[in-house]
Structures are given as structure tokens and as C-alpha cells.
């Protein structure tokens, strides 16, 4: 293996803006930002040909921390914005990023349909199982017994299982990473971007402020013991029976990505002629 290569035009820092994150020190999202910049450097995509799209939440602050084109929209709607952008400008690399509340609660419907639609974009969810920007409420992925002011004693609700839902909804690439391993996450992001169609990367990203218990995640994660499969049923079985801390590419499918309808080019005059008597 060649570990030293010729100089390349873009280093990880070229994808980082001079605007400093407001995340809490210790937050996993710093690592995801790092992983993103490393991944883009591996891909050597010019920063201006990448668009990072997000909604609302701590992790959704990520676009402005990059040197790419960014869009920080409203809560839960990052995937539609990314979808519109990718369809209108297919030559751009579109990365949609956000948190578990943004993606799986308020944006849950878009998550299902983005998986279904299988547009060639990458969706990175920094999952910390809590709403951080509003001071610690349970999210769809929160454990049922997690105590909080909004749900004293816990929600009692079964957590949402994003990877299985992504798979069932038609995502073409499903992976899980851990923020404490930024290099591993960078690799996952590289593979996700390269894989055609909708790629979903869930990154377990601890919230040190509202979920200090998640500092233990580093000891719990482990590389998936098997190679990725293109068999969705097998992948589903694995994901549904693992301990939730299995990292790596868990599914890489072969579905053809979304293609918008095309038609033979016609001038406006030809179209208008159809209104003539």
C-alpha cells in the first residue's frame, strides 16, 4: 500500500471555513465536520462543486463551517432542498446533513421518500438521541426510559430504527459510523458519495451536554464483523439483530438512481402551437 502520494490540490483544511463552530467542546459533531473535510479531500472534489444542505439543530449548523456552498434551511426540510438542488444541478455533489430530530421526527416523511426516490445524494445524520438546541428533549431515537423535563421518567416509546427504515424505504447505501472515529467516518462518507443513488450514513455522535452517558459509546462501538451486502433482506436481518453499535457499510445496493423525465427538445413555439385552434 502506498501511504505517501504525490501532492494533491485539496487538503482537508480547504473544505473548512474560517467560521468557528459553536458546538460544545467534546461534541461528536466536531469529528463529523473533520470527517467530512477529510472525505472531501480524499474525493478531491473542488469545494465549490459541493453543496452541504441542512435543516435545524446543532448538527445542522454544519454547512457554514465548510468552505463549500451551503444551505441552512428550516427544521426538517433539508432533504427536499437537497433533492431540488440535485435534480436541478446534477453535476454538483450534494451532501445533506443534520440530526436525529430534524431527520427522523419533523423530517421523517422526507426521509422515507428520499430513500424511495433514490436521488444520487448523501445523507449524513449525526444521531445523539436528543434535541440539543432546545435543551435536551427526547428524539425519535431516544431510549424509552431516558428521563427529561419534557418526558419525566422517559417516553416509553420504542426508538425509531433509521437504518432499517432506510433499507425498507429503498436507500441504496446504508452505513453506520461513530464520531469518535473521524477517519472511519471519512471513509464511510467517501464510499457513500461514490455509491450511486441515495446513501444514508448514520453517525453516532455523542451529546456531551445533555447525554453525558454517551461518552461511553467509544467503548461500545465495534466494526461490523461482516462485509457489506447487496441483499437488502440480509442487511435488514443483520441491522435489526445487531446491538446498534455495529459500524461500517451495512448495505450497498444496486438500484438505479432517480432519473428525471426527459423528452425530445422542443421550442416554446412548438409547445404554444398546441393551444392554437
Amino acid at each position, binding site marked *: 500500500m502506498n501511504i505517501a502520494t504525490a501532492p494533491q490540490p485539496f487538503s482537508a483544511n480547504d473544505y473548512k471555513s474560517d*467560521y468557528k463552530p459553536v458546538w460544545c467542546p467534546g461534541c461528536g459533531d466536531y469529528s463529523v465536520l473533520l470527517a467530512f473535510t477529510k472525505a472531501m479531500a480524499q474525493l478531491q472534489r*473542488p*469545494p*465549490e*462543486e459541493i*453543496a*452541504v*444542505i441542512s435543516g435545524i439543530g446543532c448538527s445542522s*449548523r454544519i*454547512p*457554514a463551517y465548510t*468552505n*463549500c*456552498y*451551503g*444551505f*441552512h*434551511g*428550516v427544521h*426538517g*426540510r433539508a*432533504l*427536499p*432542498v*437537497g*433533492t*431540488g*438542488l*440535485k*435534480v*436541478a*444541478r446534477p*453535476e*454538483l455533489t450534494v451532501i445533506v446533513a443534520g440530526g436525529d430530530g430534524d431527520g427522523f421526527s419533523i423530517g421523517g*416523511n*422526507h426521509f*422515507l*421518500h428520499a430513500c424511495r426516490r433514490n436521488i444520487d445524494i448523501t445523507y449524513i445524520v449525526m444521531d445523539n438521541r436528543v434535541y440539543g438546541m432546545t435543551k435536551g428533549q427526547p428524539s425519535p431515537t431516544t431510549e424509552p426510559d431516558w428521563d427529561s423535563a419534557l418526558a419525566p421518567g422517559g417516553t416509553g416509546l420504542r426508538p425509531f430504527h433509521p437504518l432499517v427504515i432506510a433499507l425498507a424505504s429503498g436507500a441504496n447505501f446504508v452505513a453506520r459510523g461513530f464520531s469518535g472515529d473521524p477517519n472511519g467516518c471519512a471513509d464511510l462518507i467517501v464510499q457513500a458519495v461514490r455509491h450511486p443513488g441515495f446513501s444514508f450514513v448514520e453517525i453516532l455522535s455523542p451529546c456531551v451536554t445533555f447525554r453525558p452517558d454517551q461518552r461511553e459509546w467509544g467503548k461500545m462501538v465495534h466494526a461490523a464483523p461482516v462485509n457489506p451486502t447487496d441483499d437488502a433482506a440480509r442487511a435488514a436481518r443483520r441491522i435489526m439483530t445487531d446491538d446498534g453499535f455495529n459500524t461500517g457499510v451495512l448495505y450497498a445496493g444496486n438500484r438505479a438512481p432517480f432519473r*428525471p*423525465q*426527459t*423528452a*425530445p*427538445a*422542443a*421550442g*416554446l413555439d*412548438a*409547445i*404554444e402551437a398546441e*393551444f*392554437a*385552434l
Partner: protein
Amino acid sequence: MNRDNAAIQSLSFAIVGSGGAGVMTAGQMLLDAAARAGLCGLMSRSSGPQIRGGEAAALLRLASTQVESHGDRFDVLLAVDWQNAHRFASEIPIDARSFVVGDPAEGAVPEAFSAAGARIVPVPLKAIAKKVPGGRPNMVALGALGALAGIGAETLARAIEATLQKGGEALKSSLAAMQAGMAAVAEAGVSLPRLAAGQAAGRWTITGNEATGLGAVRGGVRFVAAYPITPATEILEWLSSALPRVGGTLVQAEDELASINMAIGASYGGVPSLTATSGPGLSLMTEALGLAVAAEIPLVVVDVMRGGPSTGIPTKSEQADLNIALYGLHGDAPHVVVAPNSIADCLPATQWAVHLAETLQVPALVLPDQSMGQSRIVLERPASLPLAGARLVAEPETANYRRYALTPSGISPMARPGTRGTAYTADGLEHSERGIPSSQAGDHLAQLDKRARKLDHADYSRYWAEIEGEGDVAVVTWGSCTAPVREALARARAEGVKARLVSLRLLAPAQPERLAAALAGVRRILVVEQTHSGQFHRYLRAAFDLPCETRVFHRAGPLPMRPGEIHSKIVKELAA
């Protein structure tokens, strides 16, 4: 013949029937034939709530010149059958001068219609159709109505052929049934005055929704996100096949939250974008409209208004989305609201909205309504407009690029993703000139001022309103009320009332100085609108200086505004 109206020579026909009777097809063919005969016309639809098999009515008004709304009465009501036809009684006003053509085999004319004292013309549509192999009563009806409208058999035949392009037995029997219908009318000895015909060549037939779609394409829209909703769906369906032919794309979204955000994403990418919806969908879109204001994303959202609130009356018209269009956004969020003032105007109004959205980097709402969107008219080919609104784009490698720079006009260059040296993050959070999130009072004020300034400085002079006539009184109206107001004013003028018409096409930003100038010398105005609460009147009171006595005529939908009722108000409120 509408003898009450000095301005418009017209004949109005209603065809009712249920359960696959084919009244819409017959109506469509009648309009087509009339257009081929050199007439103008309008056809709207009314129907029960059933997807299939429900009672339906095709409502036509044929005229010598372009008509944009229905008159006060119908000259002919033809029923293929009478099942639940009484539900249309309020939509199909008839009187002693009208003809009611009905099949005696279908029973007596319902009380709701017979009470008008119209002349009943029994025509055994079914029996006549039966005599023709494969013949259908709606084609007999077409022949009957064509004869009453003075349209020749050959022209009617061409309209049938245009629809039944496959030809064969179906065409043959339709033609024979139509001719039998014409013969039946001749036999019954009824006739109507003839309308003067013009030149069919060069004319179009188009629905308001199609015109809206075409206005978007002419304006440069090349991305549309679609979520179906009555009565806006036809805009999206038309664009779905038109856009790919001009290099554009339509994506069906999972809901309206997605559709508007997709359009925002595409527009952020540099492609002029649009979505179309109706009231319930617009309600879901308001958060994202605010995003487009804050992030300065050009965007057009068409709201084809229907009866509200909530699911309301999806198939019928009202102007009651004015408030949400004007005020639905939270925060101080200046944006553009444009309303077409006729079915034909759906095209230029939408094109203008695209132009404003693109040049001002702002969301523009377009507010047609169901009565415009789902009606078809015959008109002269719409002229091309000198509106090629291109957005101000940032140059590559702009030094110290600031997306939200505080320029004198308020408009700042918008970098297109892919451009080197101008990467930025568009943000719905309040931001600095660079686009960095900021909660500083200075940045907030500067950006609020900037976003307001863009709209204040724009030039709306050419299209902001239609102003017609002279006089010291005026009717101020908007949207689909404009056509019946115009007709009512024509009658009033014929009676000696000197009155102006001011129909606002630009509803927001408000143009109080322009309206004041348009109303200079006017002592009294009548505001006409189709809302229950008088939304337009309240808006005029709030945002404009009305330099005179103001009277109001507002009423809810879904019944169309009639020239006659407006005329009475003009006489009562303005002529005194």
C-alpha cells in the same frame, strides 16, 4: 341573448347530466366548435363530489368577443338527465326567456328549474341516440346546442373529429348523433339570436391553469416541484410534459412541505423554480416562504384559491386566501403577491411574478382562483412580454464576496453553486452580510432594511394594475371579480354612469401612491371582492390611503360573481 349587457353579445348554455353522461365532453366540443366558427367563449365546470359518476355541469358562455366570466343568466339549460341536477340551480340561473331542453323520458323538469317559467323544449335525447348505432345522448345534445348557437354541422363535426382522433365507428356514430340533435332542434322550432363571428385563425383555447403554466415557462421557470391538489393540479400536469421539452424538470414531492423546499433548493442552485398549490398546501408552505424571504431565494408559488377554510370547497372558487398570502408569513417578511385579473391574464401575471421573483430574489405568490384555473377560454394568441427577469449573479472569484451585501438597491449578487471563489451558506437564520448567523441588532436591522428596500425600489409601473375609464367614482377590485366588474361597469356607463375601474394586479408590496394617483379626483369608490369577511377592503384600509368615501361589496363564494349583482351595487352605491 344577454340583452341586459351593452358590452358583450353572448349566449350562455348549461349542460347537466350524471353518471358518465358525457356532458363535459359535449361542452368541450361545443366550445371548440364555437371557436372554430369564429366565436369566443368560456367554459367552466361544476360537479358533485364523486370522482366518477356524479352529477356534472358544463357551463358555457359564447360571445362575439373575448369573455372572461359568466353572465347573469343562461339562455339554455340542457339536461341529459335530471339526477341531482337541482344542486346546480343556484349556479345556473334561468328565467322566462330561457329554454330548458330535457328528455321527457328522464322525467319532469325539477321544481328548482321549472319555477323560473322558462320555455320547456322536450327533446327525446335517449330515443334519438338509440336510433343511431352506437349513438350517445351527449352527442345528440351537442347537435341540439350547436344548432341553437348557430354553429354549422360541418364545424361541429370538426370539433368531434378533433376529439375522437382515432376515428372509426365511435366517430361515425357521434357525427350521426350530433346531426340528429340538430334536426331535433329544427323540428322543435326554437332558435336564438345569432352571434357575430370573427376570425378563428390565430386564436387559442386555453385554461387558466394552462396559461399559468405557460406563463411560468415563458418567464424562464425550469424546475417545478409538484404535490397534487385541486384545483391547481392541472398546472402541474401541464408543466410535467412541457418542462422536459424545454430542458426543465418536474419532480413529484411527498407533500407541500417538500415541494416548496425542493423548489427552494433548485432555485438556490440557480434554476428559476415554481410550485403550485391551493389553500391547504399554501398553509403548509408558509414557513418555507419565510425561508425564501430570509435567504433571498427567488421562488414562485401559485395558489389557485378555492373555498376555505380547511378543506373547504376544493372544487369551487373564492378569493379568501388573500390574507394568508399577504400576512401568512411570520416575522417582517416582505414578499410579492401578484394576482391575475382574468383567465387570460394568468399567463402574463405569472410571467411577471417569475420576473419579479428572479430580479428581486424574493418569493412571489400568484393568486388565481378555481374559477380562473379550471375554466377554458377562447382568446387571441397572447402577446410576448418584454420580461426576461434574470437574477443578479455573482462573478467567479469575487474578492471578499458577501452574499447579503448591503447594496443601495438592496439586491446583492447571488452566487451560483459551482462558481469558484464565491461559496457561501444561504441561511434562514438572521445573518451578517457574509451570511454568518447573527443575532446582533445591527445585522438584523440592516438585513430587514435590505430586504424591504429591494421591493420598495422595484419598478412595478407597467403592470401593477389595470386602470380603465373616467369619472369621479370608481370600482376597486382584483382577481376574478375584475371581469364581472368590467361588464357591470359597461352597463352602468351605457346608463350614463361615469366610473373608473381599478383592478390591482400587484397586491404586495402595496402601492398606495399609485392607487392614490389612479383615484385622483374620485369622490367615492366601491370595493368588490369575493370574500366573506372583506379581506381586500380591510387591506386597502390598512395599507392604502383611500382618498374618498368607500363602499364595499363583498360576499363569499362559491357562486361566481355576476355582473348583475355588481351592477346593482354600482347603481346603488356609486350612481347616487
